[in-house]
């Protein structure tokens, strides 16, 4: 069974979703929780069986799909993807378990299970087309979730979300086809397998163009400034569960893809574009933080804060050294946990008051102390307080990038200031002061169902903040592999200089026989 664990992880929820159509509407919630729990346990089992000392792919499977065109179903997992998969399973589980009363809950749960398939698929796919397949497919359930259960502008938001991402990924698809074509030119075979592509050394100019093509797809997904404007709408309109999954997992696809595709495939281009991207990342960090400060809607604050944090992740990724990349991967998980939790928390108050405007609240700390406490913890995690999960990622990302540029890191470091500004002022508006609105006087504190989602998140937030080693170790191992690969593949002087030589024989690189002409 372990040999096929990844396929099981992908298709089990999908199968369960199809069978879910049969399940009675009143029992669907239990069904969903059961399925998601099984999936989560499977993911944990994967972790248990995972060998942290291997930097390459594990549990690989390969099935021919369109061999004539080099498309195969190849999946595998390494330290980079492992934890995002677990996170996806985890969030689906607690997301379904904490669902409140909603219309058409059956459709929602089935959609969520489909979404889970696509999420896991994206992170384990090792064939560009299979990756693209899940990548695109993930848009559909999300479109439905936002569009059917969202707020008043839900249709605008969902369509915008879909089309924006779709456009970007089509450009990326052209890039992928180009890559395959180069591979074809070099070796005479068609292949979309990522590990095959890793062996290809491209001339710099091609690298640059391809990098740009891939960049469009990834940057919109992340979303990077100036492609970020779909995000506030999507978050603002989505139901709680939609925002949670979107923030926790879907956004990570973009940054994950940068590490999986852009860096190892185009090391020279990564170096070439490092500064422009870093500048964009810094704009994301500061600018969106300021925009977040100007928001009146708490959910928008959290949404913009996501963009801001994604800027740090991007920066860490383009540090191009082990510290930075490890940090950015860790921050992906951290941000997933924290922003997911924040969206849960916003959902809690929205369920009670049916408004997200901060001016409608005030003084909630005395009415809902538990809620305020958890919100406070997550707020502090979000601003990157040490011993919370976010700090580890942020610290490492910034530390890594400092190697590349001092000034830019200094600017990016303002994340810790501007982040505190909008978060604290939002917290102050909501929780401090005296209760002014009568509706707020008797709000019930968080209930058991909500605690079921929030307590584990709080525990993870602190646990991984204090003891990140279980995650850092496997991530570090795989990142070392990637950095080594990048160093060996890079051709320009500058790239050799910028990408550190770890000088450890990872046994991963076999010098390519096929260099592109």
């Amino acid at each position, binding site marked *: 069974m372990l040999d096929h664990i990844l396929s099981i992880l992908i298709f089990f929820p999908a199968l369960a979703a199809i069978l879910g159509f049969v399940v009675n509407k009143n029992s669907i919630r239990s069904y969903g929780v059961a399925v998601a729990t099984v999936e989560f346990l499977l993911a944990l089992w994967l972790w248990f069986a995972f060998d942290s000392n291997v930097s390459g792919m594990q549990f690989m499977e390969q099935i021919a799909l369109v061999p004539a065109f080099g498309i195969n179903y190849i999946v595998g997992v390494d330290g980079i993807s492992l934890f995002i998969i677990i996170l996806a399973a985890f969030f689906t589980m607690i997301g379904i378990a904490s669902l409140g009363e909603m219309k058409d809950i059956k459709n929602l749960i089935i959609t969520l299970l489909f979404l889970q398939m696509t999420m896991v698929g994206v992170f384990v796919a090792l064939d560009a087309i299979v990756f693209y397949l899940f990548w695109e497919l993930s848009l559909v359930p999300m479109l439905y979730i936002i569009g059917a259960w969202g707020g008043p502008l839900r249709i605008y938001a969902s369509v915008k979300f879909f089309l924006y991402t779709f456009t970007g990924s089509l450009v990326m698809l052209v890039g992928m086809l180009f890559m395959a074509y180069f591979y074809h030119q070099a070796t005479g075979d068609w292949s979309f397998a990522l590990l095959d592509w890793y062996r290809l050394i491209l001339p710099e100019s091609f690298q640059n163009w391809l990098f740009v093509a891939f960049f469009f797809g990834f940057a919109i997904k992340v979303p990077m400034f100036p492609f970020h*404007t779909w995000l506030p709408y999507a978050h603002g309109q989505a139901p709680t569960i939609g925002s949670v999954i979107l923030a926790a997992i879907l956004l990570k696809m973009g940054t994950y893809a940068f590490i999986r595709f852009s860096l190892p495939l185009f090391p020279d281009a990564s170096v070439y574009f490092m500064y422009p991207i870093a500048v964009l990342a810094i704009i994301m960090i500061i600018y969106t933080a300021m925009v977040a400060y100007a928001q009146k809607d708490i959910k928008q604050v959290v949404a913009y804060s996501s963009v801001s944090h994604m800027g740090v992740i991007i920066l860490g990724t383009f540090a191009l050294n*082990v510290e930075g990349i490890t940090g950015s991967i860790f921050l992906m998980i951290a941000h997933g946990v924290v922003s997911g939790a924040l969206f849960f928390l916003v959902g809690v108050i929205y369920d009670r008051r049916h408004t997200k405007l901060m001016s409608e609240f005030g003084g909630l700390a005395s009415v809902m102390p538990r809620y305020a406490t958890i919100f406070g913890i997550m707020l502090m995690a979000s601003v990157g307080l040490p011993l919370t999960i976010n700090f580890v990622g942020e610290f490492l990302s910034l530390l890594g990038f*400092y190697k590349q540029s001092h000034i830019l890191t200094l600017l990016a470091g303002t994340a810790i200031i501007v982040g505190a500004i909008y978060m604290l002022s939002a917290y102050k508006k909501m929780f*401090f002061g005296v209760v002014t609105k009568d509706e707020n006087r008797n709000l019930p504190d968080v209930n058991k169902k909500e605690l079921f989602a929030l307590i584990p998140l709080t525990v993870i937030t602190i646990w991984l903040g204090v003891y990140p080693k279980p995650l850092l170790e496997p991530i570090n191992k795989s990142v070392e592999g990637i950095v080594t690969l990048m160093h060996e593949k890079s051709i320009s002087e500058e790239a050799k200089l910028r990408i550190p030589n770890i000088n450890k024989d990872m046994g991963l690189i076999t010098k390519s026989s096929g260099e592109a002409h």
Partner: protein
Amino acid sequence: MELFLYTALFSPLVGSLFAALFGASPKTKIAGIVPSALLGVSLISSTILLILVFTTGHTLHVEMMTWMATGDLYIPFGFVVDQVSVVMMMVVTLVSTVVHVYAVGYMDHDKGFNRFFSYLSAFVFSMMILVMSDNFAGLFIGWEGVGLCSWLLIGFWYHKESASWAANEAFIMNRIADLGMLIGIFLVYWNTGTLQYDGAFAAMPSLDTATLTWIGIFLFIGAMGKSAQFPLHTWLADAMEGPTPVSALIHAATMVTAGVYLVVRSSPLYELIPNVGLFIASLGAFVALFAASMALVNRDMKRVIAYSTLSQLGYMFAAAGLGAYWVALFHLMAHAFFKALLFLGAGNVMHAMHDELDPFKMGGLGKVMKGTFVMMTVASVALAGIFPLAGFFSKDLILEVAFVNHHYVIYAVLLFTAALTAFYSFRLVALIFHGEERYKLFGIHPHEAYKFMLVAMSPLLLLAVIAGAFKAGYFDMVTQLLPDTEYHVHSAATYWIMTIGTQLLVGFAIFYAYKKYTRRDIKVPDGTSKMENSFAYKLLINQYYIPYFYEEYIVKAYRELSEIFWTKIDQKIVDGTVDGIANILYKTGNTTRVMQSGNLSTMLKWMVAGTVALLSLAVVFGLAARYSGEIKSILSGLGV
């Protein structure tokens, strides 16, 4: 011995978590008593460690577990008990134990009693991490942790707008400095390859001065924030919104001195860059004077003490900057005792006066609050530096350091500040405890605090008096780690002239303050007196207009810029472009769909038109192909 270390470190955490258990429940005494007791345990452990270090000279270094390890980076949770940190541990645990016990009484009537102790103990834990950590990252954990607790405690009475505002201000301002600190840490890592103190400091002498200077500057920026040095000082006065025990513990005795601790801890670094040290010293001297001047006229009892704290921090930085690290640390310790005492006394007064803070509305309280009166007076004397109290030994030493190092300007400034310090301290004592009983006008019936609160304060009283006696032992101990420069004025005559002169100056200032503020005709100022309308007074009471400047030109600008970013740039430009593209496509569709008029004749015309268009292109191309030779010659004739 590790057991004592861990006990000292973690018992505050246990206390905090214990109190947190009762966080949402109504007030229970036990939530205050247990943390206090656990702090006592921590104090005892620290004392044992102190004795160990003092007697044997051994230091303790443990590594609890790995925190972060990736690439070449390795950061453990490591703790060190050496001569410097043990002093800090003593100060922290001692003052916090006192404050805890005191707070059991002080917070007696507060709804958030349980919560308060949870926060307060959490603070002590963070502070212990800060001082005990064996690396910069661990230091940073504590650094941010105390920031968090400070935020929680300043904003403890969160229903007050001013309190939550002050909390946020403190946090954000500290964050600005923390960025500097973070950058400093990055610099240390990338240049020395480690964040462990021993490793990093060992590698530093081989680095070039420019790098070291940058490291020094960035680390000091961090220190400036936590220790509220100019220009990041405004939060400290506003932080007085928190409960008084908090002010005593965090904003006088411990947290604000973390910056000094950092500089002292990094003495091997600052030794290498004396220029930065001089800057630190100059800034310290400036802040000492600057803060003291604002304290002269302030009409908020706690703020006066806060400014005095600020001023004393300036002294400490002046000493540290001049390389007299042990002196700075000594003053830190002494200051912690008498300043905490002063604050707690102020807390008693506040309680008695039902949270009235304006000393002009008090007067004559000495009669009803004898204990408090004595304690505050002693503390003020100590602060003023009168022999033989603690302040004399520590503060006068700093003056000597400046003098001996030939920094006469700094010396002069500090000397003048000493006079000012004495003046505003006794202005306060005079206004509160002497003179007319003005509080009667406001219908207040003051009463003395609980006995046990006074008892709890007594250790501080004792230490404020006798701390100077530890000087020799202390010197022997810490100089095993810190540079053991002794500061003696070379000629005995000069020494005596200086010492006595200083004492006289201070004494005069005290006398003047008493004379001025025990008069019978002291009135609550109503903004009409001549002094109140003078420029200097206005400048000082408005804190040199610095908060105003921050509010007007930074906070407001930030808020407005944010608003512009959101409404103008994000919505109009960035999103507008995206929607604009979609709209253009849609509008093109709407405008060109008239082409599909549904009329067959039009459709036929379109078809013919299409053909004709193709034909014309064909003809152009065909002609060009046929006459390509001629065209080329014409073009070449035209010089194309």
